[in-house]
């Protein structure tokens, strides 16, 4: 009976409730005493729970954890070392690239050899050998478990710079993998990450474009409506073109115009509606392109490049050889250029998402509802007028022909003589031939 209201009470507490449901709940509670008590109590329990503070960590929590983590790390390493014996080694090596296969094989033989010797003989003598093996085994498992670029295996870690290069590659690969997994889609909890990512947009990036063609009765009103919406917003008219329609010149001063608008995304629908309200829509097309995926991919690419850039700077500080320095600087320039290009692309998308393109063609017409006009009373007088007009036109034309003939008579006379002579000659010639 009252169970459904208990569900509503919880929904109310969590803010997961509609206006209508709140009303329903309030009405019920006003009448049902037991529910009113229940509701008050529930709200009170919620405030109690809200006031529960976070407990501080016990005193030596971190120290004890550290000790246990070290122990755990040690056992993990020992386990890995044992696991590398036999088939698992070959399995792991197969997963590595061809470049490292030879090295891997050598390492595997060494590991097997050393481990076998190690287990067969007393520990102390072979301590040096076994620690090497552990290191090698770690590299293999690290490579395999993270699926990083396999070529970094087998590089000799002689000096800091080489190691740094390899590490930066690995970091890039790892970040790329994370980006591809959608790591950037959910904002991370970490404060570092959130501050780094705040420059990028969350949510979906959708680029909207509209094409509209419309017949209107009042051109000015339509244009005024468009301007009214854009006023005070970031939107603007990118281009505007108005011309008179030549075939109606005399009568109506009808106009035709085409507009390119940049409309803030939240006003997009309102803009379309208000333009459409002005007349008859001939053509209407709205196109949305979701570039969220490209945007996120590009964003993570930029982040990766920034990491690479930072690493390169660190390496640059350590480098002493002039040719190394030049090479790193070249690489830095290239990375920077790429970051800039991608950042521009991101900005461009953001801009397009903020301000949608709306292309409008406005065609002014005399009337949106063309009708057959009724025959009016003066039809006879109009017919008479027409008749007189026609007679007048005939008279006028005849007169004009007469005037023309008289005026041009000298010329016509000469032409007539020439024509007469010409025809005589032509006839004689024809006669002779026959």
């Amino acid at each position, binding site marked *: 009976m009252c169970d459904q209201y208990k569900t509503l009470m*919880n929904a109310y507490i969590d803010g997961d409730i509609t206006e209508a449901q709140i009303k329903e709940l309030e009405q019920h509670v006003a009448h049902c005493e037991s529910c009113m008590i229940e509701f008050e109590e529930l709200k009170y*329990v919620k405030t*109690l729970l809200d006031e529960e503070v976070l*407990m501080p*960590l016990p005193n030596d929590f971190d120290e004890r954890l550290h000790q*246990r983590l070290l122990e*755990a790390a040690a056992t993990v390493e020992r386990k890995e070392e044992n696991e590398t014996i036999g088939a698992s080694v070959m399995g792991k090596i197969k997963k590595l690239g061809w470049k490292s296969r030879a090295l891997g094989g050598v390492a595997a033989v060494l590991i097997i050899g050393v481990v076998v010797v190690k287990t067969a003989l007393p520990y102390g003598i072979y301590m040096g050998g076994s620690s090497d093996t552990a290191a090698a085994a770690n590299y293999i498992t690290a490579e395999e478990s993270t699926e990083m670029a396999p070529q970094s295996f087998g590089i000799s870690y002689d000096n800091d710079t080489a190691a740094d290069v390899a590490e930066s590659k690995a970091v890039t690969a790892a970040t790329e993998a994370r980006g591809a997994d959608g790591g950037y889609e959910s904002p*991370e909890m970490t404060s570092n990450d959130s501050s780094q990512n705040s420059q990028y947009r969350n949510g979906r990036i959708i680029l909207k474009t509209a094409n509209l063609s419309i017949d209107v009765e009042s051109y000015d009103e339509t244009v005024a409506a468009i301007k009214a919406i854009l006023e005070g917003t970031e939107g603007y008219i990118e281009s505007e073109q108005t011309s008179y329609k030549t075939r109606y010149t005399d009568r109506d001063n009808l106009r035709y115009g085409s507009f390119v608008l940049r409309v803030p995304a939240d006003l997009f629908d309102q803009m379309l509606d208000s333009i459409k309200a002005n007349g008859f829509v001939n053509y209407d097309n709205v196109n949305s392109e979701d570039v969220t995926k490209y945007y996120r991919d590009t964003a993570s690419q930029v982040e990766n490049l920034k990491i690479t850039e930072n690493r390169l700077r660190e390496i640059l500080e350590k480098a002493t050889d002039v040719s190394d320095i030049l090479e790193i600087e070249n690489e830095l320039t290239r990375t920077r250029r790429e970051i800039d290009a991608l950042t521009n692309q991101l900005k461009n998308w953001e801009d397009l998402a903020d301000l949608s393109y709306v292309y409008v063609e406005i065609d002014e017409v005399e009337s949106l509802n063309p009708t057959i006009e009724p025959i009016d009373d003066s039809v006879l007088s109009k017919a008479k007028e027409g008749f007189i007009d026609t007679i007048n036109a005939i008279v006028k034309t005849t007169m004009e022909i007469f005037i023309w003939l008289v005026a041009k008579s000298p010329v016509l006379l000469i032409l007539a003589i020439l024509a007469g002579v010409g025809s005589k000659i032509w006839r004689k010639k024809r006669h002779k031939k026959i």
Partner: protein
Amino acid sequence: MESKLIEKSINGDVASFELLIQKYRQYVYNITYRMMGNSHDADDMAQEALIKAFKAIHQFKGDSQFSTWLYRIAMNTCKDELRKRKEATLPLDERIDTMTEADRAQTDPLLIYEQKELQAKVQGALDRLSADGKEVIILRDILGYSYEEIGRILEVPIGTVRSRINRNRIMLKDILKAEA
């Protein structure tokens, strides 16, 4: 960068892992505290959960947030422990049900009791909820996660989360009332 720290942790770097859990460990401890009901057990379980996380971090696939994954481990560690203990003690759910039924007739308004007194009792009441019930209340009302996030942490459907919260809040309230 969190992903970098995770990479290093996978390779067995203890320092990186400690850096990684820096901002989550207090929440882990608070989860275990609410689940277990006393600081001694909470300490044990928090340590246990963090060690587990370190050993299993190569299984973290990056398809959820690291914190979500970590809290799930903390929850499950506590539930496992509670299940072990439960086998040797009274079944919790039944005890609550009989008590609340008996005391439901009482209509003393909760409001007359002093707040501090009650706050101290909140934990006691939480302890008497089932493990499943306790965890949703902790996540929703103490850590402030949304239904969706709770669903992700516990890997249960959102409808289940909602009904569990409904049921257990009322139960928690009844327990508090009965004790008062």
